[in-house]
């Protein structure tokens, strides 16, 4: 606390009018108020503690709170201190009170008879409020197969079209290139080429004649010729001979 003189000097410096005001307390308090207020305060504290304990024991009753009343009995403050201290002493913790009422319940308080499946809390998914779980879009297989088949057919047609077009263009390219090459060839080149091709053919004939000639030629003996000519009239044969200028050899038979 500052000294009274310091405060008064300060006040004089700020406002002499205020400093000169009488520093009297105009308020009054009830008689013996401060003598009994200690008891009141302690009583109030204990009452509050008891209420809190009752609230814990029975939350429904806590709705109806006791309202403080300013009407007190005549000798309330004279006897209040003793009453208050008695209440303070009687104030107990929840466990103490329970131990008197039902000691068996204390040990049971922390025993939880209920169980949850193992790992339940680890696997529990909490749905966030305001967010809907989005489902994946479901495609039907039948519909998908139809699309797939259509795509295959279109693909196949396209592939064939490209293939055919590629062949045609290749042939066109080939033929056009052949014509161009033929135009570029001289007459002598062509003659040389044909002679070479002819000799190749003859070589093949030689090889061919050198091969199995018996198998390729028909064995024309007299009997076979007779059979072949049997169905042809003599007149027809005579005409063919005359036309071809064939000379016949006379046989002894």
């Amino acid at each position: 606390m500052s000294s009274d003189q310091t405060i008064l000097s300060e006040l004089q410096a700020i406002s002499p009018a205020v400093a000169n005001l009488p520093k009297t307390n105009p308020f009054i308090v009830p008689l013996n108020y401060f003598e009994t207020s200690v008891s009141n305060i302690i009583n109030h504290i204990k009452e509050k503690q008891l209420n809190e304990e009752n609230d814990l024991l029975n939350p429904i009753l806590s709705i109806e709170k006791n309202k403080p009343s300013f009407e007190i009995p005549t000798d309330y403050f004279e006897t209040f201190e003793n009453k208050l201290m008695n209440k303070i002493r009687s104030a107990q913790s929840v466990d103490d009170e329970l131990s008197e009422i039902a000691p068996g319940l204390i040990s049971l308080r922390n025993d939880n008879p209920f169980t949850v499946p193992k790992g339940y809390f680890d696997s529990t998914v909490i749905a966030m409020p305001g967010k809907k779980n989005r489902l994946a879009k479901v495609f039907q297989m039948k519909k998908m197969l139809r699309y797939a088949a259509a795509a295959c057919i279109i693909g196949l047609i396209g592939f064939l079209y490209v293939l055919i077009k590629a062949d045609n263009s290749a042939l066109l390219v080939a033929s056009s290139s052949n014509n161009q090459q033929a135009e570029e060839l001289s007459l002598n080149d062509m003659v040389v080429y044909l002679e070479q091709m002819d000799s190749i053919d003859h070589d093949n004939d030689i090889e061919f004649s050198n091969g199995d000639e018996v198998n390729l030629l028909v064995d024309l003996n007299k009997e076979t010729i007779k059979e072949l000519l049997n169905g042809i009239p003599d007149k027809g044969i005579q005409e063919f001979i005359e036309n071809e200028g064939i000379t016949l050899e006379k046989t002894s038979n």
Partner: protein
Amino acid sequence: MTQHSSEDLLLIEGFKQANTKESSFTLIVKKYQERVYWQIHRLVINHDDANDVMQNVFIKAWNGLENFRADAQLFTWLYRIAVNESLSFIEQQKRRSSIALDGTDLNLEDKLQSEKDFDPNKAVWKLQQAIQQLPEKQRVVFNLRYFDEMGYEEMSEVLDTSVGALKASYHYAVKKIEDFILHH
């Protein structure tokens, strides 16, 4: 760190012991109740209201004294609770009653005028009327300095405000009171 009186230290230690808890607290209440009460009464004006607030102050002290640390004086700590509780009470009252458009609380003025022996012609009551015109913070500062003769350093701990700001508040408060008294 503020120095505790040896008596306060004994009372605090006694409160922390189970067997001396109640007796120590009773002594604390007996020692400081009047000063706490008047501080509250000057703010809330009405005795019944002051009584309610004081009970709440000491209930809070009962609940908090167990963990009370020696970084403030016991009385400063009680004053701080008392000021906060008083201002909270006034706020609750304001919500319930009508408030004047100029920001002054007519309810406190009404309460003052309904006090027994109230006489607006007497200087002491005029001073009280002038105090009720002050803004809340200036009212608290003036009461602590003028009536409780509290030093600025201690007041700084109670109100958690700088000494300079408190000096300025007190100066403005005195000037406003002077103006009120001279013109009413």
